[in-house]
């Protein structure tokens, strides 16, 4: 067994203490504070009053933007996670093939992962500007367009762009998770499949997919959480305009808490988001604990 002897029963807990302390203070306390605030009366200046029951939650749900925002959040999470998983998988398949310059290609694909979201979002915000945006510039220069096109005529289109940027920055993570899975597949499986006369699609369905499923599951669940919590893209490109029509739950929460001084409703939204995340987290734990049997 890969363990070492310990002298006292309490020694392992001593080793865990610093980490436990750090996480308790800065992760658990905020959670408790948010829960307490969501059930308390909160004045505009943020002073906590007595117990308020579900008043804050009722305020949050009755917020005129709440319905749209929940719908947006669902669209945002499903489209970004779904499409980036699909594209990331394809990219990983390609990067797993053997070709000249594969190392360089892999290094380039990692770029968006290493770049701050707020910077990526600012760049894309500039690219799709109508008057002087770079996309129009490039397309006009290539002769593909004759006149500048307004890329963001309606808020639906703007939201679609935001989803696009979300997909763009999420792909590398999926790609590298899948790639790690692909590299661990023994070539013998493919040889056996070839001997049995399986074509590309058959190999994909019966060899590749089952074997990369663990990495794919991990990346998908983690992505659901990251994408749900993603703030800078929407905040930089539209700031939720017009009238919260492009907001997600996180950006609305931020606006309500720090611009509109509706801390009560904002904490209730936090709790709602928190509960949604708990469900995702529970799912993730079940999946990742499955491999931890020998602990």
């Amino acid at each position, binding site marked *: 067994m890969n*363990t*070492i002897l310990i002298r006292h*029963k309490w020694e*392992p807990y001593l*080793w*865990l203490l*610093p*980490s436990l302390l750090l*996480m308790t*203070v*800065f992760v658990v306390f*905020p*959670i408790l*504070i948010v829960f307490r*605030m969501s059930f308390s009366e909160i004045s505009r200046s943020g002073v906590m009053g007595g117990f308020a029951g579900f008043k804050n939650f009722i305020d949050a749900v009755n917020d005129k933007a709440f319905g749209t925002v929940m719908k947006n959040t669902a669209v945002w999470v499903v489209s970004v996670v779904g499409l980036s998983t699909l594209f990331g998988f394809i990219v990983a398949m*390609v990067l797993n093939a053997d*070709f000249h310059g594969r190392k360089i290609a892999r*290094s*380039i*694909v*990692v*770029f968006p992962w*290493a770049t*701050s979201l707020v*910077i990526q979002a*600012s*760049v894309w915000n*500039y*690219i799709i500007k109508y*008057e*002087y945006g*770079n996309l129009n*510039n*490039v397309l*006009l*220069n*290539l*002769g593909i367009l004759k006149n500048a096109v307004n890329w963001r005529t309606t808020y639906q289109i703007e939201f679609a762009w935001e989803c696009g940027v979300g997909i763009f920055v999420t792909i590398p993570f999926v790609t*590298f*998770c899948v790639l*790690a899975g692909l590299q661990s597949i023994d070539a013998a499986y493919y040889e056996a499949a070839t001997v049995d006369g399986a074509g590309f699609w058959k190999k994909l369905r019966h060899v590749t997919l089952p074997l990369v499923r*663990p990495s794919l599951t*991990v990346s998908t669940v983690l992505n659901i959480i*990251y994408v749900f*919590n993603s*703030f800078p893209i929407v905040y930089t490109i539209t700031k939720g305009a017009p009238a919260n029509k492009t907001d997600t739950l*996180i950006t609305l929460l*931020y606006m309500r*808490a720090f611009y509109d001084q509706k801390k009560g409703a*904002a904490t209730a939204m*936090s709790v709602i*988001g*928190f509960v949604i995340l*708990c469900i995702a*987290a529970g799912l*993730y*734990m079940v999946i*990742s604990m499955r*491999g931890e049997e020998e*602990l």
Partner: protein
Amino acid sequence: MKKQIPEAAPKNRKTGLILVLTALALTIMLFSMPIFRTDTVLFSKKSANTFVGDEKYQSVRAEVEQAAAQYAGFNKTEVREDVTLRTKSDGSQSSMVTFSVTSQGWNNAWQIITSGLPSGSILAILLVCVLISFLAGFLGRSRISGGVAVAFALCTLLLVPAFAMLNTRIFSRSIGTVLSGAREADISALLASADRLLYGEKAGEDVAKLLGGMTYNYTFALWGLLPAGMLLLCGVLLMQNARLGSTLARGALYCFVIALCIVILYPYYVMFITGLRSIAETNDMYFLHMLPVKWVWSNFYDIVQRGVLRYLGNSLLLSSGATLIGLVCGIPAAYAMARMRFRGKKAFLGFVIMSQMFSPVVLLVGIARLMSALKLNDTVAGLMLINAAFNQAFAIWLLRGTFVSISSEMEQAACIDGCNVFGALTRVLLPMAAPGIVTTLIFVFINAWNEYTISTVLISTSSRRPITVGITQFSSFNMIEWQYLFASALLATIPVVILFLCIEKHLVTGLTSGGVKG
């Protein structure tokens, strides 16, 4: 490497020949079709304080119509009018009507080549490439001629976008937008050649004088040369090599990878060129050069003046602090998780995984309140602690994976020799686990460096901002100084991208194998 190319099967050779001939026919057809459009403003007149329909309008209009009639013989002429209405602050209105008579000419590729226009030479090269490729593929049977045919077919493919780009730039941009004094000689030469092409020197000086705003559009139809080039390439390959399928698959793979890299690098290209432009260029909607006309390196000097170095310093401090705290707390925990047996291990792991789920964003309000209670709001130290805490999960995850993958024999030996557990960790395990530790270190560092949301909420003093928040000072509500924004974004991005590239390989194995399988 294969030394010999297998002799192509006769059937392949025949198919290849058909494809090559089709490509040639398509090229010749495209070259002969009048698909190049030239728009010329022949005559223009501005008339201030004119309202549509009034007397003044009528008289100017008549004058313009008369002028248009003069040019009706050359090409398809057209009268355009633009009305600009302005309402002054006192409520009165003024307007300006601009009339322009434009002519449209359609020409084919032969005319462009013979006219001596700059784009004509590219068209000529393109045509020569197609012909050489055709001849080499058609006549030659050796390895060399095959190579030549393929190379020139590839050249054709590359020349089409090059042509499109250069062409549009030379005409529309040189003439239409940058009429600067320095380029007058170029412009008059261009105008003269355009005049020759359009009017066969008949209109002479008269037209040359009027050619003020000539724009030139080659049409979309020219992209038709691209499929023609593809056909040519496939045909040549078929004639040379029996196995077209694998060659094409390889080609498609490279095309995909190149397209992918272009798309991913595109935002960085935008960041780079915009960061080095002058303010006039970034906000000019008519400015259409792919690269800055003038590279303004002084943008970097300007952003330094506006405190970017301080923000970078703050970021460095914040990320190093967060990394240090994260590792000091994380290494012992990961060590215990990897090497010791105790009750509640599973519970702790569950707690770690749970904490990874909650990005600080959803807890913003709680964090802000906690920090003000601890008197840590608006301090870099507060940000350090938050970042360290929220990165604990990943740090423990990665470190534990590394420790588990290293055998504990050495440590056990050290323990028997009288070393205590702490000594075993620091003297034996840590040096061996160095790559994994560096990976974790860089990963936490980058996460803290790129963090944005918590910093916006917690930091209110301008001089304490990290760089991700600092760059937003260049985008105020109605005026965004893009060149400064991107110049500082560049400074904030390059170091972390390089750092990330160093750990990329270790990170992936750490995240999946170390984490999931345990």
